[in-house]
């Protein structure tokens, strides 16, 4: 809730305006590099830098990154989606159930993505047609999707035995490269191009920047909002399928609490919580940074409680450090 204010401050304090603005955008990269260097040095002999470990970080953050790419659009359009974690859980199950029922990999894909897109569509319709704040719609949907996920199998996990599925959606490596990394890259590149290079991206930013101005200019803001919410549902569905492929099972707890990590990745990346400004690349780095911190602190051998404290401190200090640099 603050880009707004810092925009305002910018409007007010005009000195070094440009410099300030640019730094702000790069904070996440500076912080990322800083944290990386720190861990590389301090955990050098503990395997942090081993390619396997680095790939692990990529694997572990893939689902958050993918959902965060879609969330970048949602937040850029000044909406929010709290239901992503629950959608992932439900999709992991519908995909697993479809395959269990004999519909094969294709069936699994249709079921998983379909679940996500459908819920996203319902979110979108409620936000645009019934005009309920997206915070409330998706909060409600978070409970509904989670409840459904618990209901359909009575909280039991559903194993996935299909090797192809498990390979493509989570567990496989192509050469040394995990498929999860490939998924992340593909989604990030598409997201980046969509946001920066297409009319849709531009109009998403316009909708979030000033909805009425965007409407006056002929942007169909309702359509934009609907689309970003469908997109968010769809990618949450994909994330759920990746959880399923990685874990060889669907389960109702997958993605629990992910909404906060996803939003954190987006904000850390430099997207404004008030809409109108967004960056997909920043988002991905935000997500990677969170994943890297999680990984590094475990390797350090800290207790969970210590990990939580240190992780909190790093997030705050990383951003504070970035800000400080500005002022010079």
């Amino acid at each position: 809730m603050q880009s707004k204010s810092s925009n305002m401050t910018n409007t007010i304090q005009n000195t070094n305006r440009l410099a300030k603005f640019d730094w702000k955008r790069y904070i996440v990269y500076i912080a990322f590099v800083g944290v990386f260097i720190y861990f590389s040095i301090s955990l050098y002999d503990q395997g942090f830098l081993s390619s396997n470990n680095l790939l692990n970080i990529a694997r572990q953050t893939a689902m958050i990154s993918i959902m965060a790419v879609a969330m970048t659009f949602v937040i850029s359009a000044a909406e929010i989606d709290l239901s992503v974690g629950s959608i992932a859980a439900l999709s992991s199950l519908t995909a697993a159930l479809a395959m269990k029922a004999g519909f094969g990999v294709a069936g699994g894909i249709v079921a998983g993505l379909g679940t996500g897109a459908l819920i996203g569509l319902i979110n979108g319709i409620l936000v645009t047609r019934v005009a309920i704040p997206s915070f409330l719609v998706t909060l409600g949907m978070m409970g509904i999707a989670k409840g459904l996920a618990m209901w359909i199998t009575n909280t039991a996990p559903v194993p996935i035995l299909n090797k192809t599925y498990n390979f493509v959606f989570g567990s496989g490596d192509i050469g040394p490269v995990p498929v999860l990394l490939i998924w992340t890259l593909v989604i990030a590149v598409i997201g980046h191009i969509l946001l920066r290079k297409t009319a849709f991206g531009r109009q998403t930013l316009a909708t979030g920047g000033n909805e009425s101005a965007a409407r006056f200019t002929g942007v169909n803001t309702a359509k934009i909002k609907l689309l970003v919410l469908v997109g968010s549902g769809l990618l949450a569905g994909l994330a759920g399928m990746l959880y399923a492929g990685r874990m060889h099972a669907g389960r109702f707890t997958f993605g629990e609490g992910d909404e906060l990590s996803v939003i954190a990745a987006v904000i850390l990346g430099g997207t404004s919580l008030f809409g109108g400004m967004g960056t997909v690349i920043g988002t991905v780095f935000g997500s990677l940074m969170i994943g890297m911190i999680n990984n590094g602190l475990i390797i350090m051998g800290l207790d969970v409680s210590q990990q939580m404290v240190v992780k909190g401190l790093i997030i705050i200090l990383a951003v504070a450090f970035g800000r400080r640099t500005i002022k010079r």
Partner: protein
Amino acid sequence: MSQISKSFNGIKVLNSVDFELRRGEVHALMGGNGAGKSTLMKILTGVYQGDEGQIFIDGSEVSIQQPNDAKENGVSMIFQEFSLVPTLTVAQNIFLTREPRNNLGFIDEKECIRQTEQLLNELNVNIDRNIPVEQLGVGYWQMTEIAKALSQNTKILIMDEPTSSLTKNETEVLFELIDKLKAKGISIIYISHRMDEIFRICDRITILRDGKHVMTSPCSELTMETVIQHIVGGNLEHAFEWKDRNYQRNQEPVLQVRNLTSGRRVNGVSFDLYRGEILGIAGLMGSGRSEMVRAIFGIDPIDSGEILMNSQKLSIKKPEDAIKAGIALVPEDRRMQGLILDHSVKDNILLPILSNIKKGMFIDDAKGNQIASEFVTRLNIKTDNIFKTSRLLSGGNQQKIVLAKWLANSPEILILDEPTIGVDIGAKTEIIEIIRSLADSGKAIIVISSELPELLALSDRVIVLNEGRVTKEMDRKEIASEEVLQHAIQVV
């Protein structure tokens, strides 16, 4: 447009209005604040839908339900409240929804910037194209808005107070452009409260009053007096006459500014201000007028120089300090700086004086209502009641709230940055009167205005700013005419 009516919450703001626009003409739409001009035009552009009435373009009836319908019919508009997205750059705003594409179908950013450059050159302005527009001043918003409208292929171009934040130079450029458009057969609806402009460029005039059509006739058949008469519905004293006022300039000044430097646009400004004086500040767009007063008011940090009040050095780090010292600033940008648009008229007026209307620990609501109502009446703010959301008021009436805010606070030194943007001629006269009487009561006043007649009518003394420096200081008596001042502004 025929027999257009429109009500908001049961209050009729347009009452069976007829309006006719001929091909290739510049048609002035005039009327007091809240007369319904903007609303009528918003119906034409699909922002609002009329309750009754029909719209014909080229003889056939059209249905305009949303902005895109208007676009398809070749209607575009420069909105009074601006339709820019603050987080996008100038170029991105201008081409929103119509971005040039490359072969792959992606937005061609370079082409976008190139075309923007061309447009801006045509308009003879130099704006930084790569920063979000929220970081630009109002004048630049207005130029961007104009560029955006011009870049569209239109048959009918509506300009809702396009020059309200522009100085003479930019206005001249715009007029040249209007002439060119006219020659191309484009029809223009021109809304303004500046009489001189209307007579310079318009072919016909339509006047609205209280949502009703009053008259339409060719410009040549009208005089300024009759137009004013129709707008205000009565006679008006000659407003823009300068009155020689008496005040002591041999006393020590209330405010002394010495070598003030702040940011890139204020480079060593010095001047004095005396009790009872109205000091006018003139300059081109971007000359640093607004920045100078922002630094005095504690919004921008002061890099060097000092400010003395009653010969005491002031340390102003934030607006609060300035307010405590008895300085008030009416900012130029009412949307971003002046008003909390989603708050009521009353809440906006009372915000600076909350501590004055306390009863014990709490706000005295009755007193607050009374003060708010008083100012609504005094400044003739047209609103259903004092609880109406400011966003819903007409542009001129919003500006009056901004003024009311600070008049209510009765500071020692009142700084007014473009105080009458968008205010109708009647109200402007009243405001000028109020400012004069404030000065008469011993307050010191600084006025920035791009509207030279107004500046000349008010000021006892004028200083001219150029690139953040005072280039000229003139006593009002030395200024024989507007041209003299205009010349002083332009000569570096």
